[in-house]
């Protein structure tokens, strides 16, 4: 039996827009709120057309106050709605940190399950689009260390739509991080109809034998480049695993790959120290110690802020650096 699925060739930002539209259509309790998400359609156009279609009661321009956005969303979520709040950039989520840390993530437990916060906080993040300071921060690690929330990072349109729908439907709060660099950098065939991509499952982007490379978000781009080059130039083949969900991480996928290749590299653009790479290393340590033929490598951002944009290309892990780490691991 074959089924035909209507698909469209979409950018990631379009995939996100479709996910929001799908859920707004399907579920009256879903609300979209944030700065400039209404009439303007979002500074990246993620919410384009939604205000026209669903009106200002469901697609809401808010005052410029992240704690207020998240805090009122907690109240609305506890009282029956499913808010999807946008932080204009992840670097502006910090004023809402108290609300996320002490309420979004804890209200379920604090009330013994009486009140819950089935909400999604969306935020564009990461370097590479020549944005001003702070706009390009990659702080996924702040949330993977926060019990009570899940953390999701899509890297393409298909995943973005399916993961965002899953996130909105999830009973737990989800921090949904959208790599800005991927918003329009490529297109994917995306089914027109509703579908979901399960939270907590990684995707194998490429299969190989010599080393496992774990990454997510925009770093899948640099990683795929590097991996193609080492394959051509040096005949080293790599598993490339796009983790997609950073908490809870896909332990099985990590273990299976490392146990096959015996070597691992993690690539992310957040500062190395204390980054999510360390947690991937911990999972490898816990599951695959005896399989490791060389130390786990990581290629990450520096222990510096994301720089002003004249220097951001120096900051972002380059294919050169990734290749060097792969070679070092394989030669160990």
């Amino acid at each position, binding site marked *: 039996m074959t089924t035909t699925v209507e698909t469209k060739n979409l950018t990631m930002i379009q995939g996100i827009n479709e996910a929001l539209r799908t859920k707004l259509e399907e579920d009256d309790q879903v609300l979209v709120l944030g700065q400039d998400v209404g009439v303007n359609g979002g500074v990246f156009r993620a919410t384009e057309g939604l205000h026209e279609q669903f009106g200002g009661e469901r697609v809401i321009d808010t005052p410029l*106050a992240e704690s207020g956005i998240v805090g*009122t969303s907690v109240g609305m979520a506890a009282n029956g709605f499913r808010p999807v709040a946008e932080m204009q950039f992840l670097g502006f989520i910090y004023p809402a940190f108290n609300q996320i840390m*002490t309420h979004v993530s804890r209200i379920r*437990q604090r009330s013994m399950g009486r009140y819950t916060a089935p909400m999604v906080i969306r935020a564009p993040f990461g370097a590479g689009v020549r944005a001003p300071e702070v706009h390009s921060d990659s702080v996924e690690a702040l949330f993977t260390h926060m019990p009570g929330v899940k953390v999701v990072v899509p890297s393409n349109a298909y995943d973005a739509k399916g993961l965002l729908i899953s996130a909105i439907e999830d009973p737990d709060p989800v921090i949904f991080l959208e790599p800005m660099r991927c918003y329009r950098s490529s297109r994917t065939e995306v089914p027109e109809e509703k579908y979901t991509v399960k939270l907590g499952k990684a995707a194998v982007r490429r299969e190989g034998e010599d080393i496992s490379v774990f990454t997510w978000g925009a770093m899948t781009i640099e990683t795929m480049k590097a991996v193609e080059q080492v394959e051509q130039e040096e005949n080293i083949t790599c598993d490339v695993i796009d983790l997609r969900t950073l908490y809870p991480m896909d332990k099985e996928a990590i273990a299976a790959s490392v146990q096959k290749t015996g070597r691992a590299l993690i690539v992310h653009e957040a500062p190395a120290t204390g980054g999510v790479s360390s947690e991937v290393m911990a999972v490898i340590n816990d599951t695959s110690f005896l399989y490791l033929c060389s130390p786990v490598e990581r290629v990450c951002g520096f222990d510096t802020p994301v720089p002003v944009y004249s220097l951001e290309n120096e900051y972002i892990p380059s294919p050169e650096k990734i290749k060097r780490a792969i070679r070092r691991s394989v030669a160990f």
Partner: protein
Amino acid sequence: MMLDQFPMRQILNEEGQVIEGEQLPFSIEEVKRFYYLMLRARMLDKKSVNMQRQGRIGTYVQYEGQEAAQVGSAAALEDGDWMFPTYRDHAATLTFGHSMRNLLLNWRGRLEGGLPPEGVNIFPPAIPIASQLPHAAGAAWAEKKRGTDRVSLVYFGDGATSEGDFHEGLNFASVFQVPAVFFNQNNGFAISVPMEKQMHAKTIAQKGLGYDIPCERVDGNDITAVYTAVKEAVHRARSGGGPTLLEAVTWRYGAHTTADDPTKYRDQSESERRRETMDPLLRLERYLKHQDAWKDQWVSSLEEEISAEIEQAVEEMENYPEADISQLFDHVYDVPTWTLQEQIDEHLAVKGRNG
């Protein structure tokens, strides 16, 4: 200037007399009911302080002196409304229908302390100061979106007005004209910090001017004024008139918590003076006496009744099963993540072997 602009609304003065130009909109029975509710709250507070001293509960947060503010405001709500308390607002939550046993369990470090009876909408007390104000705005906003006439009532102290969330909560509430009442208990201190160091403003009510919402200052020790002001604000909220900021001027007689020593930062004889002059219960007693409606026997029978209720709750609290370890893991997520599940398994394995 603001002190003139925001006079302290009173109906009953300290002597228990209706002040000139005002009328008391309550029957003797209603006043007696207020007295009963405040007495109940006060007796629970006293019992709790004693139990803390005896080590039967942990660190406890007193509210003695603030009963008129808390009881009067809570009594102005109706079933289905929402309440967002702080750690100090057990007189309010009790009045609004929280379970006495659970309130006591709170001071044993039990999650049940945050759990109101089914159908009673009370959030767990907010710990990070002022963080509950946006919640109240959000819950009220949800009611507005659904088209109900339910309102949110949120409690916070004078110190809380310094936090960013105070401002953001009020701003959201005013922009979206949600049915929320922001009820400030100005007891003059945030732990040791007196109001003059907390703000340059002379009143808290005036902070509402920046949001163009109704704001009023009331004598927080006059339950009749508190109830009336909150009732008006609630009514306005229910009928689409948006949020209100109320400042109830009051005083805590005791320490910030049982772990605090107020003599480090203030002269406690001021509390004694206030007990004798402006106490909320004393004021109703005086009123009732003026009306010839006070009988000592009535009070002692109330006291007996309340004592019995409290003893029963204490007993339930003390017989309540120990916290089960599952409470540590339950409700963190809808379903535990695998990392958490592994941690649970390891934990249980260790316990199995050693305990």
